[in-house]
């Protein structure tokens, strides 16, 4: 009986097997190009199969895509982009520089359509189109990474469709899915799957499969095991069972762009003291948190807060290797003293250090942090709050220690204790401004290294770890998934194993 059911299941799977490939992917709403609240994550990967950007990324770097080549003027205020000729939209119309001009001028006038739209409106003055295959971006002032951060991020949309639409954000017409990408949207079934059909006229090569299905599954390990999907990102522990299994291949592990952090409230005692924060950093066993909180599926994050794949990453930051004796010695210098197992403050009272924990998903990590702080002799208690209430606590400054986490770890934030906003340091502001505005690559790198050192020494937040994951995929139809270092778009874009280059044959994909 069991064999019979298995055979039936396999038959169900094989009905789709020829010319199709199924990726495990959560539902991120309709694959329309304008979605400011969804865009900053998997939505980008999903829509990248349908729309193209001027630049794309292979495994390690930015590559020309709809743009064939580009050049800057000497003052770096005008970027001339030569577009790839003979590219067509999914509805058969020709793509040209008018579409590029339309897309960027739309974003300049309505930056709320994209979560990076602010960059376009801040930096872009106008787009000129001397001929159908040339677009000139005239900037208000020189910007060092306009190319990757803006041209690598914004998807080009067809002028002949969108120029007739007034409310682009909420437009529901069927032609909103017309792109130039390797796949056309055939069907979107909310909560279940996206069905994409090959665009055999794709300029960069023929898609490897006729159908690409992105399917929502709640348990990707079981779904892979039972042939319900062909690929999924898994934690290394989960991925182990597929190592060496016939028909499967693995890529990675790679560190996620998320990290967990311990945020200190620098506006109230005792965490307003840098030495106190450093003492706590010595007292937290980050390796144990990775081992016990993530079952080993993580790497320590840099105390300079920047991700190791980022071009700004500095690898010489203070590590605060776990050493409770050092922590206690530093605390004693600050007036604390041990009495038995307890730690007393300068007034002889039991020292307390309450912990606010963002979200149930962080509770295990919070408990491990709590255990380490307890070992130093503090009295602690954990309060768990979901994202909204926790942000309120951060905004009001109603916390001492906040165990948090977020992505976007390739770049610096204007508020260094992000998502808090209490830490103030004029030196940070000055360096951040320099890093953000300089047009000299060398100066920018210097500013980045100084910023990291400042954060690592001053410690408004102690970064704990990045989780790691692996791409597990079925070897068929010539598809081999790979990790895109730096994310799919620009530097620090959405991290993903689902790079469209893996799904197209030869041509530009083999670069």
């Amino acid at each position: 009986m069991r064999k019979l059911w298995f055979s039936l299941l396999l038959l169900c799977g094989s009905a789709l097997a020829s010319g199709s490939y199924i990726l495990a992917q959560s539902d991120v709403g309709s694959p329309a190009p304008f979605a400011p609240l969804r865009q900053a994550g998997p939505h980008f990967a999903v829509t990248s199969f349908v729309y193209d950007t001027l630049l794309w990324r292979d495994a390690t770097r930015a590559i020309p895509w709809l743009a064939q080549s580009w050049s800057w003027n000497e003052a770096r205020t005008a970027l001339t982009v030569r577009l790839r000729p003979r590219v067509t939209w999914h509805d058969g119309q020709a793509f040209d520089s008018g579409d590029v001009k339309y897309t960027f001028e739309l974003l300049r006038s309505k930056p709320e359509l994209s979560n990076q739209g602010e960059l376009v409106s801040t930096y872009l003055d106008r787009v000129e189109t001397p001929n159908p295959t040339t677009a000139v971006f005239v900037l208000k002032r020189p910007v060092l990474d306009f190319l990757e951060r803006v041209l690598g991020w914004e998807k080009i949309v067809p002028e002949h469709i969108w120029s007739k639409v007034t409310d682009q954000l909420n437009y529901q017409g069927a032609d909103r899915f017309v792109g130039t990408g390797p796949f056309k949207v055939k069907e979107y079934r909310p909560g279940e799957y996206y069905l994409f059909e090959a665009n055999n006229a794709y300029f960069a090569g023929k898609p490897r499969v006729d159908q690409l299905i992105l399917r929502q599954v709640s348990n990707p390990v079981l779904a892979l095991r039972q042939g319900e999907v062909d690929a999924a990102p898994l934690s290394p522990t989960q991925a182990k069972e597929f190592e060496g299994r016939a028909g499967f291949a693995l890529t990675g592990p790679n560190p996620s762009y998320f990290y967990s952090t311990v945020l200190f409230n620098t506006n109230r005692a005792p965490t307003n003291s840098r030495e106190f924060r450093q003492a706590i950093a010595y007292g937290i066993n980050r390796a144990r948190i990775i081992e016990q909180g993530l079952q080993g599926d993580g790497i320590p994050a840099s105390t300079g807060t920047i991700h190791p794949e980022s071009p700004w990453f500095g690898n010489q930051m203070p590590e605060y290797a776990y050493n409770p004796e050092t922590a206690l010695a530093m605390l004693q210098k600050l007036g604390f003293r041990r009495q038995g197992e307890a730690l007393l403050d300068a007034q002889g009272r039991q020292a307390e250090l309450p912990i606010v924990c963002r979200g149930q998903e962080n509770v295990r990590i919070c408990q491990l942090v709590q255990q380490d702080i307890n070992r130093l002799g503090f009295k602690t208690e954990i309060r768990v709050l979901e994202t909204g209430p926790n942000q309120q606590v951060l905004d009001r400054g109603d916390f001492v220690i906040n165990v948090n986490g977020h992505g976007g770890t390739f770049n610096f934030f204007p508020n260094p204790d992000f998502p808090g906003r209490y830490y103030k340091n004029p030196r940070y502001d000055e360096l951040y401004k320099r890093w953000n505005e300089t047009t000299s690559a060398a100066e920018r790198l210097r500013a980045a290294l100084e910023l990291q050192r400042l954060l690592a020494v001053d410690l408004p937040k102690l970064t704990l770890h990045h989780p790691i994951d692996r791409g597990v995929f079925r070897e068929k139809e010539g598809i081999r998934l790979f990790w895109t270092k730096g994310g799919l778009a620009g530097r620090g874009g959405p991290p993903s194993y689902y790079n469209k280059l893996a799904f197209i044959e030869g041509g530009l994909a083999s670069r």
Partner: protein
Amino acid sequence: MPRPARTLSSLLLQYLGLALLALTLNFFLLRLAPGSPLLGLEHSEIATALSEEQKQRLLTQYGLDQSLLGQFWQYAGRMLRGDLGTSLYYNQPVTQAVWPYLERTLLLVLLGFLPALLLGVGLGLVSALNYKQAWERWLLGGLVLLQALPPFLIAILLLILLAVVWPVFPVVSTMLPGQGLGDRLERLALPVLAYVLWELGLFYLFARGAFLSVLGNDHMTYARAKGLPERIVIFRHLLRAALPPLVARTALILSASFGGVFFIEAVFGYPGLSTLSLTAIARFDYPLIEGIFLLTLGTILLFNLLADLVVMGLDPRTAEGR
């Protein structure tokens, strides 16, 4: 106005008042909870620290820059026009966003509810008619135990046993392109089974209780003393007398089952309203949460109203306000 008509109009007024109260609470409770639809951007994979201008522009775009009262009047106006608004996260009308998920939840409830009801009431009847027999006590014990299990635990046990250890049913609840009703039913089998097992004990217990209380009445003794055949005693006297409380409790259980079914959907990853609700809540998508809440509440109120009307029809004493 005749008394039954007065009772009916007062009942309808009660429901209307309840619906208005729910509409108001629905708006204010959500907005007063700390959080914002923009929070998701700050905690995404490429977290964005929004500038004040960006925040303001996005809030204006979504009509969230107005005062709470101003937003409430807009909301009330939309509700009066029957317009649930546009989802902030999905950028599409709420009705359009909710419908595919609601449809799947209703299918699950419908497929699970009827067998649970029929089986539960049937077993309750058999049990009441064989009160205190040894096997009846075992049946009672088993179903009390089943009824005490939370729905998510039943779902997890079924998933482990019938989809993992012994993979008779597919582990994935979502469909693939080209699959039809047969595949939907196959993928629904475990969630439906979990639903049936979860509700079965409850239906059994209240049906058994209702039948036992009627069986102890004088009119049942009288009917039997008259020498009426057992079939007529059961169908004409027992069932008829037990029907009003059964219908009222059935409507209550059906309403409450929307809560339990969310857990079942979550365990199986079934793409029903639970999936959508979790996204809507996590993203502070106010119109979408309001829409889901209103549709769920509307369904619950409708079932309760129907039950009240049916009970009024079955038992004239309730229509007369006694």
